[in-house]
């Protein structure tokens, strides 16, 4: 089966023998984007979270056939080192990661949350950010999520002023 999808704004076409192959493996092994991680393989931990048409999706449990024609965003496409996404910037400022393995999933889930809830409360964070971090960086992540919301707001405000 041929799958065409935009990954980080670039069109990719891949030939897949098994259309149920998890999107995670296509992104990592065929497109060589290693930022998205394999954790549990059963949509429980969230390490493999990426965005499909702006929505957070557990890519270990998302058959690649569903990605056909969709826009996929991975951690590599969220921002760049020179121009990080507010979520990435906040993560740096709050020195969130410990081992770091699960962090891309958390950042993608946070990006999806801020798209829907620009200024999330602690309760919004508790309900929506349910990934698992075995280093227990939740406290710093909470601070980073609030910080990302601030950065997002100030970015939006400066964009409005400049336009």
């Amino acid at each position: 089966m041929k799958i065409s999808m935009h990954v980080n704004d670039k069109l990719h076409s891949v030939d897949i023998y098994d259309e149920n192959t998890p999107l995670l493996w296509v992104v990592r092994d065929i497109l060589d984007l290693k930022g998205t991680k394999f954790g549990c393989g059963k949509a429980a931990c969230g390490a493999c979270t990426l965005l499909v048409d702006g929505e957070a999706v557990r890519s270990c449990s998302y058959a690649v056939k569903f990605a056909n024609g969709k826009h996929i965003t991975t951690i590599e496409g969220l921002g760049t080192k020179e121009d990080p996404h507010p979520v990435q910037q906040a993560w740096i400022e709050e020195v969130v990661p410990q081992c770091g393995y699960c962090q891309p999933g958390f950042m993608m889930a946070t990006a999806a949350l801020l798209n829907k809830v620009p200024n999330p409360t602690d309760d919004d964070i508790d309900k929506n950010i349910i990934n698992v971090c075995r280093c227990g960086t939740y406290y710093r992540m909470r601070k980073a999520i609030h910080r990302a919301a601030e950065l997002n707001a100030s970015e939006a405000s400066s964009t409005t002023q400049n336009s």
Partner: protein
Amino acid sequence: MKTRTLYTFCVLLLVGIVFAATKGPLTTTYLHISETDQSEEASDIAFDKMMDVLTHQRCVNCHPNDHIPKQGDDSHPHYFDVVRGDANLGYQATNCNTCHQSQNNPYSGVPGAPEWSLAPHSMRWEGLNRIEIAESMMDPKRNGGRTPEETLHHLTEHELVLWAWEPGVNADGIPRELPPVSKEEYIKAVKTWFKEGHRIPTK
């Protein structure tokens, strides 16, 4: 000798006729079942078969009486503190489709079907008995304003309902338990129950 045999035969025949006429079962001793009774019996049998399915955890897990979806054959609360949310789809950024797609996932074991969601709170079945579930199911105030025809359609054609017979495998690759009645038998029973007037047996 022949005359004697014929005589014996005639006597026995006469005794037999007299016995049959006086001691045998009369037609009036049989229970007459009216067409209405037969219809009600068919309806009740169909009702029981339909309810064997609708009370199965595969159905009730998504018709909770609280706001928490249930999972598995033991109907435990959905992992990760997942709840109903405003639109029966979970929270804003973490919702049903974060994990559940329109088909089962054979690798992760995450189940999926079109329109995966929780039944609205008005359609809560958890904790109700068969009769109460039927009353709820046929009550437009609680069934989403469905007419009997629409309810029949939901029960026999909605892909999410029929997913019960294609529940896929769990995370260990073990097939999930099927409802106790086959899909064909269930659909036939539901159609019979509606055809016979969707009569709910008395409590």
